């Protein structure tokens, strides 16, 4: 199937090309053509400069025939909730828990192949994640929150991925005017090499208010390509909370359009990057109309040979006067071999805006450490307190409180094991 190409495909590309040629999703041919001609993106493709996917993606699991998943419906149910509510759970691409007829009041939807062919209206450059996803997705949820509905409790989309398999899912959530809801995306996986690609699209109608959590505690050999795309109408409010606490190669993209006046957006995240992990968070925000705000804050902790990437692009179109966009990315390096690359990028075409960005990279302050130790606190405990102080702040004011506490607990577990 790759006779058109003039490049020598990598092992991962070969498997992907095979799978794409068999896919019957609408966008399969587009993805096939892209991959066949250009291959996976390399560092020469600007949005992939710090994550050379072609080199980093060593292989791609063959399609699962009959998976003996260690994540049965039971183990999905046993995952402690991050916040109380309703869970739709997928073990690879099988929908194992949470029947849509039991969705909370104000929410309707379906789970099935139809989700694979849903689309969004956000423009994305070098959209490898999205193209592969829409071509290969085998399942997903399409959910609608009724106008005015204030959904009780969280709606969790739980994902697990078995060892040696690939799992591709695609979800679409539409929130009607003046509705309110909390969505939680969770990702767990086997510690054996595998691959997850999950795209979630969220559309917020006028005045809708949402919190969207992306929390991953993937196994140390998992590759995850994740994408969250959103679209905000007038007066909409969205808070996105990201917690990366696992995985080997993770690319989390967040792309959004702020296209209604008086829309307010906050993106806050913590990236915990352990020995040998490569975690890339790439966000692109487009402010298209006047009077919108965006606040973006990431705190990163990197240990061992871990490598972190943050790319934050904010585009302010010419009509988008009075945009207020603030972006900060602070990294704490715990070892000499750890590394973090931050690339904030402001493209501003309006003249009356307040936009700022800041990126810092530090290590643990020796004077802080000495002061704490001089009070009898061990070096290990002192470091833990200082690291916790650095990251906990991000989720401290999270609503509901129990959600913030759950996220902080995941952080503590990770720090205990890795820092």
């Amino acid at each position, binding site marked *: 199937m790759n006779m058109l190409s003039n490049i020598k495909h990598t092992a991962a590309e070969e498997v992907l090309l095979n799978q794409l040629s068999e896919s019957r999703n609408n966008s399969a041919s587009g993805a096939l053509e892209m991959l066949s001609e250009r291959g996976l993106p390399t560092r020469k493709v600007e949005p992939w400069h710090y994550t050379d996917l072609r080199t980093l993606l060593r292989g791609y699991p063959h399609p699962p025939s009959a998976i003996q998943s260690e994540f049965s419906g039971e183990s999905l149910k046993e995952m402690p909730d991050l916040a109380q509510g309703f869970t739709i759970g997928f073990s690879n691409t099988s929908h194992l828990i949470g029947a849509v007829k039991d969705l909370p009041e104000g929410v309707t939807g379906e789970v099935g192949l139809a989700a694979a062919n849903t689309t969004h209206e956000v423009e994305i450059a070098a959209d490898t994640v999205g193209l592969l996803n829409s071509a290969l997705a085998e399942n997903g949820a399409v959910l609608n929150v009724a106008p005015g509905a204030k959904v009780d409790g969280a709606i969790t989309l739980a994902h697990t991925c078995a060892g040696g398999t690939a799992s591709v899912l695609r979800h679409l959530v539409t929130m009607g005017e003046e509705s309110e809801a909390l969505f939680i995306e969770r990702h767990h996986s086997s510690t054996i090499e595998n691959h997850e690609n999950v795209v979630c699209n969220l559309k917020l109608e006028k005045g809708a208010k949402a919190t969207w959590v992306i929390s991953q505690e993937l196994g140390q050999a998992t590759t995850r390509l994740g994408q969250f795309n959103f679209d905000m109408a007038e007066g909409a409010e969205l808070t996105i909370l990201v917690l990366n606490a696992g995985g080997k190669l993770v690319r989390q993209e967040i792309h959004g359009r702020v296209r209604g006046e008086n829309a307010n957006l906050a993106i806050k995240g913590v990236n915990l990057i352990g020995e040998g992990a490569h975690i890339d968070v790439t966000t692109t925000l487009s402010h298209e109309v006047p009077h919108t705000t965006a606040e973006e804050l990431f705190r990163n902790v990197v240990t061992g040979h871990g490598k972190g990437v943050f790319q934050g692009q904010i585009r302010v179109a010419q009509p988008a006067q009075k945009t207020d966009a603030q972006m900060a990315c602070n990294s704490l390096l715990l070892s000499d071999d750890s590394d973090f690359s931050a690339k904030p990028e402001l493209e501003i075409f309006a003249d009356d805006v307040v936009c700022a960005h800041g990126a810092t990279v530090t290590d643990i302050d020796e004077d802080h450490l000495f002061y*704490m130790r001089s009070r009898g*606190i061990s070096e290990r405990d002192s470091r833990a307190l200082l690291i916790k102080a*650095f990251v906990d702040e991000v989720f401290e004011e999270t609503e509901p409180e129990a959600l913030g506490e759950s996220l902080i607990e995941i952080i503590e577990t990770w720090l205990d094991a890795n820092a």
Partner: protein
Amino acid sequence: MIEIKNLHVKIADEDKMILNGLNLTVKPGEVAAIMGPNGSGKSTLSYVMAGKDDYEVTEGDILLNGESILEMEPDERAAAGLFLAFQYPVEIPGVPTMNFLKAAMNSQRKAHGENELSTPEFIKTVREAAGKLDISMDMLKRSLNTGFSGGEKKRAEILQMALLEPKYCVLDETDSGLDIDALKIVSDGVNALRSPERAFMVITHYQRLLEHIIPDTVHVLYKGRIVETGGKELAQHLEANGYADIIGKAA
């Protein structure tokens, strides 16, 4: 008892010597004032005692209760009963003061084989000690020393000392940056901790603090050595005449 014997100290990655054969003994129950002009090595002495690794001891020893502490980590020295009230307490954003106090108290209790304090016990103990130093519980909810005024920082140091109940207290210029009311509060706090088991080294540049914390002995530190030792009248002499004649005599 604190015994400092023939202590020679240099900066870790340079040749520069700061302490040059310092000798000092402070007995249990004694308050020893260490005075000296700026740059004479007072803070260096306090840091070396606490175990800061910017400095290297090239000769001599520091003993607490007869045991050398030079090979101990800073936290082990604290557990052995040493406490340094810093000249410049560091601000640590993000660590609430209460959490820090609890970690410090429980770490030391653990080192002494005692049980951790329950939260109600802990809060009660802190509330009482803070009240005596005119420290509000609101201040203790804030990040450690972060945005505290000079006076608040010094009071917070004395609070930590009161809570940790050390046997060997080193106070480095605790009077600097304090107005007269704060000086009184801090001095009362220190005086309340004086006891027959506890030894104090009160480092100060001025005699002012010693009107509130009356020392048993006064030692003049100059160019990294104790050049004069006397009773509290030595401090008054320095106040009236400056350091010139004593330094001149030593030189």
